[in-house]
């Protein structure tokens, strides 16, 4: 039999409801041996839910799962593992309080009763080497960066010797280099006949590894296409139900008026950062993971309290930065890279999250004017097209893209906003919302707002920015004008 056509997994009419509304509706899906099957769809389309059902983390309300032709029930993560299904979760799914090695072998430790640490250590080394992570397996997981943690997660799934590996946005927070390495590994696994389900919002990646792509929309499977023949437009159109013609709507032009000036900004992660950014400019920061881009933003905004030196000037006036309050006062806003950890009060409603930073807009004195708050919040929800089940719903129930809109809105309700620091605004966000965010950035720049943008997607930077500064190991290694933008040039400055 042709290995490539042998059916490994079949999902038939899977349904799942939350609060009575469907997250998945009769979703069917097939995975062959040695295939990389890409799952794509907008935020909230139901991709992760489908995968969680497959991984035994979530129950299903209806439907059937066939593994190599046999119907199986997957009631728990353990059962999934025993059936040969491994998963890289979209959310961090490792424990910070135990070591890297212990995380890798959690619940499948060597040894009968006592953990065989020697063996675990040696095996961990091998596994980590596989994904190119050079860290001591005996350090606590909490000492790793987000990117490293993600690699550990990937390594863990790879080491399961699974028949099916699910990767839910595995590359959203790792570097290009590591992504390349992962894709190589995936190709290797394909050859061994492993079936891989791969979820990613970057359509450019599909061609590099994918065989087929299944598109989900509102919990329904729209179509399965061959990656080889499908164009990006085909996919996008099926995903969002409309066409997105031009991805980067760049219309803004910076003024010649220096808005933000940074001199000699230094702490233990970044060294002597000097920047001059103009009013209405979209200024990008490029760099490899851990280069210190986020740190620069945190420092400018005042989010970090640690000992720092350097001068931040706005409109030629030095700002004494002790806390975000100081920079917010002069009209700065900050969208951190991890919205769940750094921005949102997850179990509070949208309005709570939206109004949090500028409560003073909703009434003078100590009291909040609820009707005024409702009015402004409603306006913002409308203009940003934030979609949710109910206004009272907790923000954690929103899809990633809509959460991101909430975070952005938080700063936009401030009519004094003139500098916006944005860190990875499109991470885990679908194409549709991505486009909305791009448009919004352009609109803001047109309105004279200065934007300092960090994103790991080079194309985004090149499409949106007027200038890009490249950060390497905490230092600026070069600044390019828009007409000098060139992928290889930037990458060169990033690494050396």
């Amino acid at each position, binding site marked *: 039999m042709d290995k490539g056509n042998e059916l490994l997994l079949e999902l038939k009419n899977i349904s799942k409801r939350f*609060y*009575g509304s469907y997250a998945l509706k009769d979703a069917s899906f097939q995975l062959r041996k040695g295939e990389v099957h890409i799952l794509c769809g907008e935020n909230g389309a139901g991709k992760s839910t489908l995968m969680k059902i497959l991984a035994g983390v979530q129950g299903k309300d209806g439907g059937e799962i066939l593994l190599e032709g046999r119907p199986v029930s997957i009631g728990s993560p353990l059962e999934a593992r025993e059936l040969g299904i491994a998963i890289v979760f979209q959310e961090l799914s490792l424990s910070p309080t135990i070591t890297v090695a212990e995380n890798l072998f959690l619940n499948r430790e060597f040894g009968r009763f006592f953990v065989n640490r020697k063996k675990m250590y040696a095996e961990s080394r091998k596994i980590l080497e596989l994904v190119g992570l050079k860290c001591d397996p005996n350090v606590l997981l909490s000492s790793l960066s987000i990117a490293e943690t993600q690699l550990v997660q990937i390594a863990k799934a790879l080491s399961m010797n699974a028949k099916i590996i699910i990767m839910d946005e595995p590359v959203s927070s790792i570097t290009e280099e590591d992504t390349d390495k992962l894709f190589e590994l995936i190709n290797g696994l394909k050859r061994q006949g492993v079936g891989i389900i791969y979820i990613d919002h970057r359509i450019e990646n599909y061609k590099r590894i994918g065989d087929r792509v299944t598109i989900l929309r509102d919990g329904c499977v729209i179509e399965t296409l061959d990656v080889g023949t499908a164009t990006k437009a085909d996919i996008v159109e099926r995903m969002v139900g409309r066409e997105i013609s031009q991805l980067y709507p760049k219309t803004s032009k910076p003024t010649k008026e220096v808005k933000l000036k940074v001199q000699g900004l230094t702490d233990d992660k970044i060294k002597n950062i000097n920047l001059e950014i103009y009013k209405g400019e979209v200024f990008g920061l490029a760099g490899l993971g851990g280069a210190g881009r986020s740190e620069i933003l945190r420092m400018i*905004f005042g*989010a970090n309290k640690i000992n720092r030196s350097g001068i931040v000037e706005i409109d030629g006036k030095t700002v004494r930065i002790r*806390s*975000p*309050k100081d920079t*917010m006062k002069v009209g700065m806003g*900050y969208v*951190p890279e991890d919205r769940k*950890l*750094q*921005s*949102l*009060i*997850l*179990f*509070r409603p949208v309005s*709570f999250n939206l*109004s*949090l*930073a500028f*409560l*003073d807009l909703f*009434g003078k004195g*100590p*009291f*909040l004017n*609820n009707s005024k708050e409702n009015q402004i919040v409603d306006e913002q929800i409308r203009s940003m097209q934030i979609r949710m089940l109910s206004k*009272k719903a907790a923000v954690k129930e929103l899809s990633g893209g809509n959460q991101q809109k909430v975070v952005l809105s*938080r700063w936009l309700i401030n009519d004094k906003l003139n500098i916006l620091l944005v860190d990875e605004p499109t991470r885990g966000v679908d194409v549709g919302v991505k486009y909305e965010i791009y448009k919004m950035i352009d609109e803001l720049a047109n309105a004279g707002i200065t934007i300092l943008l960090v994103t790991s997607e080079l194309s985004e930077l090149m499409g949106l920015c007027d200038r890009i500064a490249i950060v390497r190991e905490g230092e600026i290694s070069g600044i390019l004008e828009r007409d000098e933008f060139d992928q290889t040039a930037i990458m060169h400055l990033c690494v050396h």
Partner: protein
Amino acid sequence: MESLQKKSNFNMSEWMVKYPQLGTGLLFVVLCIIFIIFSPTNKAGDNVFLTAQNWTSILESTAGFSIGAFAMALVLLTGGIDLSAGAVMAFTGMVVAKLMEHTSLPLPLIIVISLGLGLLSGLFNGFIIVRFKVPPFLATLGTAGILQGLGYMIADGKSVYVTNESFTRIFGFGQFLGVPMLAWWTLLFTIIMYLLISKTKFGRRAQAIGGNEEAAHNSGINVSAMKCAAYGIMGLVSAFVVLTTIGRLGSAVPTQGQGYELQFIVAAVLGGTGFSGQGGNVFSVLLGSLVLGVLLNGMTLVGVNYYLQAVIKGLVIIMAVIVTLQLSRKK
């Protein structure tokens, strides 16, 4: 069948989300019914549980717990906990009593001094917690030891009798318009704390901190100051609560306030306040402490043995939390 389940689920959970105090309210009503049924009748043929006298007694004995629980709810909202509330009471209570009996300072001044000391004790907690990142559980436990010791030292281990009648009336057994003073105080604090937690920017920010400290910080909220303020308020309120204890007992005892912190926490949690910023509805918390108050009153009235009372109280606490959680948790 499916639709049936959906329907009933929907109704209940919708209600519970909108009115989280329902669970506690339900419990309150159930307890009242039980005690009405089992309560003895007095000579006039009235159900003793329902007499004005008995409700005066319930309101008086619950006042301190309610007031303290409001402040504790605020602390819980910021993601903290305060185990020193009882010790603050022991300490400031002794100061009040000593100043009242051994100096001729005017009463208002004495009260201001003691509230000030309560505030300071709370701020001290807050300082340790935000400056040195000591877990609130430990920080406040340590402070509790310190203040308890100071309280003993001030009083030399003895109780102090409070003879100032206007004090014992205002904070103790006095009445105004036929309603116990302590009920008025409860009302006052209910309003103040309701406004503070649910209607002010301060309250909003406190809730944000408990929900996600880093997010609150990144939104320009001065997390350290807010936390200090929450503990400060807790200290100040504790210092107020002990006034009611002293008022009711007519004396300050060195062990006063012992275990109050736990009562505050229990009442706050029965009122739907979580340990990381959920809930925080002052009216629910009031209901929570009324549940405790009615329970203790009713059990004594019905003649339940003291040891059994402890057992029942434990059971009721657990069941109450279960009911509240189960009802308010959406599927």
